[in-house]
């Protein structure tokens, strides 16, 4: 099987599974969950294969219907994309595995569609495809957030819906303006064309894109919905929302910014927004009494850190951003799964009472996830934070570092407040679904093992050095897309 079909499969498999879900669903919730899980496992295997290939041999470009860029649609899977894909699919699999047995086929179908949309979003190589996948993602997220149809779920869903609709309209306006100016939708073509646009126009389009993608991504001041959606949503959805959805929107924003808006003023805007997001989210998070809402503020803060990392424009910043991304995805996913499951079991999200039905696996999961999130050595978060600080020093932005320090300490305090409630509880809860247990143990082990794998794997480090700079380098991207002579496949 040629390698170019893999990216397409990443999108097609969950989509087809979502439609084929009809058959298992007639037999009940459990077969439907098993079927969904199997298709997500298949997705993960495909992602791993693609990851292995791309790490060794460079980007994979899939062309549809033999229309070579800049005329046709293409999927572009480079190093940054496959990392996102690998971990995103991994989290989806774990999140689903830990979901309760009372979730119906509607839930599973929506999760599959979300997975398909995420994969497509990260892979797509032209801006309108990004819009389409983004819309699918948004719509599915709205539905999943309001899944329980309780009062608070509907409230969260409506706020998310209105903000998300305005955002998608802004995104479409931006695309309209871009197309009007450039005549092409392909990201590589846009990169070439955007060199000649006036800066005022670029500012306008960037602002619209920022609204469009920033709402979904959790950037201040557009992240109000995030803190309502997390407490109200079911915990696998929270895990995926916080872990991969907001980060994928961030990924798209960064990809477009790197290709179409390379001027330093845009990096400065993102840096400012990143600092504001981090500072304000951590400050507000300190006062939270709702466990899941607290974790949501921590998510927004980490997104701020990632924004800072990616907008420093040095190698260190980029690697730091990637490490922060992986670390946040795994640790926040793990935290949401365990905290959310505990809240469900004890019917309360208040800090003092949510841990009353905890199990030993919960304690392990929360401590592992929490310490990784905070960047306690030797977790990935620690390496990420060190590289972030080194990047800030090299970019002469140490003032930002001084500003970040008190808020990192604040984050440590409130996360420890959450964690201490868990490990001091008596751990005699009753589990409804053993999947929660297994998912927690596996994710904890992964979190513990990953730093040693990453830091000691010589080949990975070499490839990092060689291939890291390439993905976000617009010229390389454009060259590889335009130099395309491979035969495409029928899409």
């Amino acid at each position, binding site marked *: 099987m040629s390698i170019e079909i893999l990216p397409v499969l990443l999108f097609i498999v969950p989509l087809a599974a979502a439609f084929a879900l009809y058959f298992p669903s007639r037999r009940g919730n459990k077969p439907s969950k098993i079927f969904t899980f199997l298709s997500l496992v298949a997705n993960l295997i495909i992602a791993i294969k693609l990851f292995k290939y791309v790490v060794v041999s460079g980007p994979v470009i899939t062309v549809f219907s033999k229309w070579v860029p800049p005329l046709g649609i293409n999927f572009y899977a480079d190093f940054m994309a496959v990392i996102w894909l690998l971990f995103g699919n991994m989290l989806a699999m774990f999140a689903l595995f830990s979901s309760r047995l009372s979730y119906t086929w509607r839930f599973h179908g929506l999760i599959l569609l979300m997975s398909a949309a995420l994969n497509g979003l990260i892979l797509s190589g032209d801006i309108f495809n990004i819009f389409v996948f983004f819309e699918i993602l948004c719509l599915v997220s709205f539905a999943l957030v309001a899944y329980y149809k309780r009062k608070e779920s509907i409230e969260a869903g*409506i*706020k998310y819906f*209105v*903000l998300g609709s*305005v*955002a998608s309209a*802004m995104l479409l306006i931006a695309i309209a303006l871009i197309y009007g100016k450039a005549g092409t939708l392909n990201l590589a073509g846009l990169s070439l064309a955007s060199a000649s646009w006036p*800066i*005022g*126009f670029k*500012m*306008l389009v*960037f*602002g*619209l894109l*920022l*609204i469009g993608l*920033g*709402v979904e991504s959790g950037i201040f*001041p*557009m992240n*109000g*919905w995030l*803190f*309502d959606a997390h407490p109200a949503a079911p915990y696998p959805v929270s895990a995926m929302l916080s872990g991969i959805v907001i980060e994928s929107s961030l990924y798209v924003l960064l990809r477009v910014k790197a290709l179409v808006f390379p001027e330093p003023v845009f990096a400065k805007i993102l840096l400012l927004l990143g600092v504001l997001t981090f500072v*304000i989210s951590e*400050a*507000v998070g*300190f*006062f939270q009494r709702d466990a899941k809402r607290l974790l949501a503020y921590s998510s927004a803060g980490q997104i701020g850190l990632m924004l800072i990392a990616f907008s420093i424009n040095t190698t260190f910043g980029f690697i730091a951003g990637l490490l922060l991304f992986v670390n946040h995805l795994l640790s926040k996913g793990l935290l949401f799964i365990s905290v959310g499951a505990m809240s469900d079991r004890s019917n309360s999200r208040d800090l003092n009472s949510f841990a009353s039905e905890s199990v030993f696996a919960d304690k392990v999961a929360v401590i592992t996830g929490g*310490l990784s999130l905070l960047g*306690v*050595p*030797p977790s990935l978060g*620690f390496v990420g*934070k*060190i590289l972030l*600080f*080194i990047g*800030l*020093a*090299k970019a002469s932005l*140490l003032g930002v*570092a*001084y500003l970040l*320090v*008190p808020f*990192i*300490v604040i984050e*440590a*305090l409130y996360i*420890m*407040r959450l964690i*201490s409630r868990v490990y*001091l509880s008596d751990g005699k809860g009753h589990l409804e679904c053993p999947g929660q247990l297994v998912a927690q143990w596996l994710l904890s082990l992964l979190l513990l093992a990953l730093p040693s794998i990453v830091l000691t794997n010589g080949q990975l480090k070499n490839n990092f050095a060689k291939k890291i700079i390439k993905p976000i380098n617009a010229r390389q991207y454009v060259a590889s897309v335009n130099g395309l002579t491979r035969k495409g496949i029928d899409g």
Partner: protein
Amino acid sequence: MDNLAVFFAGLTVIFFIANAIFTLSAGFKRPVAMHILLSLVLTAVLVLLYSTKNLIVFFALWEVSTWLTYFMANNPDKSRKYLWVSLFGEFLMLIAVVRTIAFTGSMNIASVAQLGVVNVVMFCLPFVVKSGILPFNFWVGDMYTGADKRFVAYLSAIIGKLGVFGFLRFFIETGIVSVGLWQNVIIYLAAITAVWATFKAVASEDAIETLSFSSLSQVSFIVASVLLLNQYAMLGAVLHYLNHMLIKTGMFMSVVYIWNRIGSTKFVDMGDFVMRMPFTFLFFLMLGISLAGVPPMGGVVSKWLMYEGFVSQVRLLPVLLFFVAGVGSFLYVYRLLHSIFLGRKKKSMEQISEMNFIAILPVAVSAIAAFLIGAYSKPFVAQGSKALGLDIDSLKSAIGFADISIVSIVFGALVVFAIVLWWLLPRHRYVPDTEGYTAAAYLPEKIELWDYSYNFYAPVARLGEKFVKFFSLDWLGAFWMEYVSELGQVVRGIYNGALHVYLMYIAIVLFLSLNLWGIIKEILK
């Protein structure tokens, strides 16, 4: 591993073994296996910390030790101050580390000094924080009294003095020999901290609290001596590390053993334990004499060296303050001895018996070692100076000398004389008495109202009350918390849940992106 690392690592490992032996045999009611495992991990981390010269490894291990200490103390509420102030110091150290790596390209501790005083101060900040020196002294009381009793000995003996190691490693690597402004500031702060801690120890009603503030007082002295950068002072500091470790090991273990039996560490619940725990009393007495810095016990060796260092540098104000703190230590050592082992018998006496042989072993070894350091000080002084790379082997300096062995011999002779006297003279009769004689008056329930061991040093405590209150920084904390809470509530209002407000934020961003270029053009026209 260089000599400094060997010295510290060796002491830490020895302490770990002693602590493990004690923990297993002291009869704790809660399971100890996990605890011993965690302290093994902590010991391993610390040994690595002692041996590294790499900036990032040093920082990472320092942070791990902070987190491990927090978890082992097992009391999130009381350890919180420790956590945030330690983390704050550590992140400033991280910025210093990062600046050093980014601007000098080297990963060695030695290059921290190349970027100026600010870098040095930021790097050394966690050392000051861990040592509990003003203005970072507010975490000590809560952390020690709230810490898990299985861990508090480790906390005092090793963790409390990590800052000392940090400073020693820093100065030895960077080779700084001049005492600049920042060092002087810390020396004075340490002096004030020592006096403050002594007052707090004297006024305390809880044995663990007394011991913890005593630790703080001693550690401040050690840190100030290190910062003096005088070879006698630094040698004294290293030896005092050893002495203090021995003293606090023995004392904390005795108190924790008592706590295991009677469930309390308050002085009012203890009394006259010497009748049941004579050996513990003997060892405690020896350690107390060492703590006070009186010959023939080892405490005097290190204290003498430190005083020599200060006096030879003509730093009379700090050394005077430290001397006041030292005199204060007589007070609380006597308080400990009297309120725990002498004095009136209390109800808790029924639960007390002598420490079992295995548990008392570390205490005994500490006490005997304390005596040996005094009587045969040469090998210990030589070891200490080897750790520092110096060449001193006796207590002889430019301005004086001390030969403790002579004092030990004289002391030994006096002890023999006292025993002979005790044998010859008539004994007193022992009258059992568990309740006070009240002439049939009704005794109040609260023992604090009539037991004379309560508020033992009231006059001294009153003397230092205002001083202690000021430097406890509680007023600063209260002010800060109020200010921060109000600010926090305002910031919290950003996310007040109203959909229209969130839409307004989007409108603001939209407005900004629409008008920015136009406004700029207007301004430029």
